[in-house]
């Protein structure tokens, strides 16, 4: 049975080429058709592969397809265009192509009146191409190609409104911050090559499996470098700063790339290389701590943001922190589970926010919204579902996955595990609070901008919302037990030391109570006593400003990294290297040419007789050279001189 994995990335790529090259000359309807058809076909191939996967029609798992042409063959190093389909990549593929297609559909409605319509869809298809390459690749190098490619697509789409300086800057920021992470990924690959001699994931797993005692040391370094890469892509401390700014891109982009798929690539990568992390408890610990820290840090910032998309952006950072926390306690399947449900409800929330922004005529400020539940009933219902899901209220999708991560942390049976669980729990409270805050400010109460007349969005936008809402309700019902059983061949089995069903039940109840508490606080702040938030902010102005300004992290980075770097670049690179060394060398070369020219030009006087003289002299010289037998003369002369010197 052949699954034709290569079609999965290449179909969107064909869409990219068609729209990218011809799009500007094609009518809008045709652009949309191309843009939708190719991702849909790609999703269909994935679906067929999934059916074959579950019916056991594939010869073996992981099912690997390699391009016969090969790619890099140098000595003992062989790297090919290899795609591997296993449980992990199948889940990711379904999420990427499925949600990707839905968001394409949504974009047709959302972007209908935008300039550069074809450009948008070309980029979106390009993103799907690279993302599927990233997910499918059987070795780290091909994954890196996809990794860089999604970064490129992200850059292009964040800066889609490139006439806006802030959008262009945000694109650059995302790209540059990601480069720092990519540096870690590259170093990790070099170390893998040096120590394992291969970049193929399965071979690395095999080598580690045959050396169970090989832990720590270089493995820790590799794992930490990989984690740096994942930190960049998945917006974790200290590299999370690009994601909130990435909201400058069109909202479907925020939903697809900066919430549902690309930013989860880091989590996917950690799960994909989990054997390395399993062999390095220290690296795992770092992942867990960074995840937990990011989760609570971003959640606190999200509490006070007023831009609807920024709240969601910080929420995404925070949820990605959960996934890292899950990876850090070796609960990879719980992480991937949360990745999946998060993709459902966060894509839903972003698209719903897009629908709100669309209906409000481009307004993104929560303080100017309100009372939209009557004007936009469908958006209201689906957002409510999304909010309930992300808050972790039973029986919505987020409850199951978040609970699985928190339980895995607690059930480590260590103090550190309980601390991580507690941080996660507090984050759950904050999450619930800021999501219900968003919900109240947007849909409840009375309209705060009477001059705007909101309208419900077209069905091309609402259709995907309804499907995503359905997934956000029942996406978690499969349950972590079955999900983790399914993923075990790909991410390994990691028993929980101190787990029991009773503990799980108790923790679930605690988590739901905490989520409801968050709702209750939001209800008090934004419905029953709307003067409270201002009073609290006035009571602790320092704390409020700290949160409102995102802990001044951007400013701190600017002061300690960006500005010194710019200063060094200006003085050392700009003045010394560029103007001094490079410019000096150029001037020197030019000067030599001028000087030589000034001398040589005397030869070219235009005087016929001087030319004739040179000609005659040249002819005489040639004659002399030909007639005299120099080979005979020189040794004789030399011998003569030597003889004279000798005697």
């Amino acid at each position, binding site marked *: 049975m052949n699954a034709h994995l290569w079609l999965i990335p290449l179909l969107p790529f064909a869409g990219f080429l068609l729209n990218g090259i011809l799009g500007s000359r094609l009518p809008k309807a045709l652009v949309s058709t191309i843009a939708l058809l190719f991702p849909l076909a790609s999703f269909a191939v994935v679906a067929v592969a999934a059916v074959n996967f579950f019916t056991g029609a594939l010869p073996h798992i992981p099912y690997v397809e390699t391009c016969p042409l090969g790619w890099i063959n140098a000595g003992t190093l062989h790297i090919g265009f290899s795609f591997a389909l296993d449980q992990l990549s199948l889940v990711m593929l379904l999420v990427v192509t499925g949600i990707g297609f839905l968001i394409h559909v949504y974009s047709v409605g959302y972007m209908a009146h935008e300039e550069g319509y074809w450009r948008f869809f070309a980029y979106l298809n390009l993103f799907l191409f690279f993302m599927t390459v990233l997910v499918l690749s059987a070795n780290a190098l091909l994954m890196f190609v996809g990794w860089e490619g999604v970064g490129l697509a992200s850059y292009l789409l964040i800066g889609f409104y490139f006439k806006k300086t802030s959008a262009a800057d945000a694109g650059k920021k995302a790209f540059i911050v990601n480069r720092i992470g990519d540096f870690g990924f590259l170093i990790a690959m070099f170390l893998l090559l040096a120590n394992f001699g291969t970049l193929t994931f399965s071979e690395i797993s095999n080598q580690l499996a045959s050396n169970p005692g090989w832990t720590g040391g270089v493995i820790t370094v590799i794992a930490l470098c990989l984690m740096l890469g994942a930190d960049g892509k998945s917006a974790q401390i200290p590299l999370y700063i690009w994601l909130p700014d990435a909201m400058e891109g069109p909202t479907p982009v925020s939903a697809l790339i900066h919430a549902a798929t690309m930013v989860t690539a880091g989590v996917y990568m950690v799960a994909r290389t989990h054997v390395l992390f399993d062999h390095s408890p220290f690296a795992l610990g770092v992942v867990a701590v960074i995840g937990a820290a990011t989760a609570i840090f971003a959640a606190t910032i999200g509490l006070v943001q007023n831009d609807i998309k920024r709240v969601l952006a910080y929420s995404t950072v925070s949820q990605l922190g959960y996934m890292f926390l899950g990876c850090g306690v070796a609960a990879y399947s719980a992480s991937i589970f949360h990745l999946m449900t998060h993709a459902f409800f966060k894509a839903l929330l972003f698209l719903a926010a897009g629908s709100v922004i669309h209906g409000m005529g481009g307004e993104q400020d929560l303080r100017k919204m309100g009372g939209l539940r009557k004007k936009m009933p469908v958006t209201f219902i689906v957002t409510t579902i999304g909010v309930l899901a992300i808050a972790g209220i039973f029986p919505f999708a987020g409850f199951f996955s978040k609970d699985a991560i928190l339980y895995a942390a607690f059930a480590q049976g260590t103090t550190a595990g309980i601390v991580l669980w507690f941080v996660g729990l507090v984050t759950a409270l904050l999450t619930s609070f800021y999501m219900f805050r968003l919900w109240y400010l947007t849909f409840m109460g009375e309209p705060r901008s009477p001059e705007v007349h909101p309208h419900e969005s077209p069905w091309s936008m609402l259709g995907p919302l309804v499907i995503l809402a359905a997934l956000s309700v029942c996406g978690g019902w499969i349950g972590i037990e079955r999900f983790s059983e399914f993923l075990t061949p790909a991410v390994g089995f990691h028993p929980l030391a101190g787990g029991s069903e009773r503990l799980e039940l108790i923790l679930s109840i605690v988590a739901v109570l905490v989520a409801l508490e968050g709702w209750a606080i939001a209800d008090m702040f934004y419905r029953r006593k709307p003067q409270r938030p201002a009073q609290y902010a006035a009571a602790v102005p320092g704390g409020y400003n700290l949160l409102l300004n995102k802990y001044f992290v951007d400013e701190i980075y600017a002061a300690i990294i960006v500005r010194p770097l710019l200063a060094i670049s200006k003085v050392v690179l700009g003045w010394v290297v560029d103007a001094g060394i490079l410019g000096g060398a150029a001037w020197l070369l030019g000067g030599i040419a001028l000087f030589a020219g000034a001398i040589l030009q005397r030869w070219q006087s*235009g*005087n016929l007789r001087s030319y004739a003289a040179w000609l*005659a002299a040249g002819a005489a010289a040639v004659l002399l050279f030909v007639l005299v037998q120099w080979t005979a003369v020189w040794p004789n002369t030399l011998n003569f001189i030597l003889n004279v010197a000798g005697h």
Partner: protein
Amino acid sequence: MNAALLQQDVPLNWYLLLSAALFCLGVIGFLIKRNLITVFMSIELMLNAVNLSFVTFAHQWGAVKGQIFVFFVMMVAAAEAAVGLAIIIAVFRARATLAVDRIDLMKL
């Protein structure tokens, strides 16, 4: 002059020396004369010096190639004379001089 002297072969070297002397005269004339027409004639002199050595060697080796070559050279020299004189006339019309030292710019 008696017949014996006429019958006697002139040695090869004499022809070659004459050829070299003519050629050197041509070169010297080419280098030192100012008048463009004289320079031109010097070139003709050099060509003919070479012709002389061609003929000499052709006679010496009994080969006809050298003689044929002389015809080629004469033909080219004739063509060259036609073109060269035309240029000289054009130059004279433009500058009213034939002094090569004063004709040292491509543009007028």
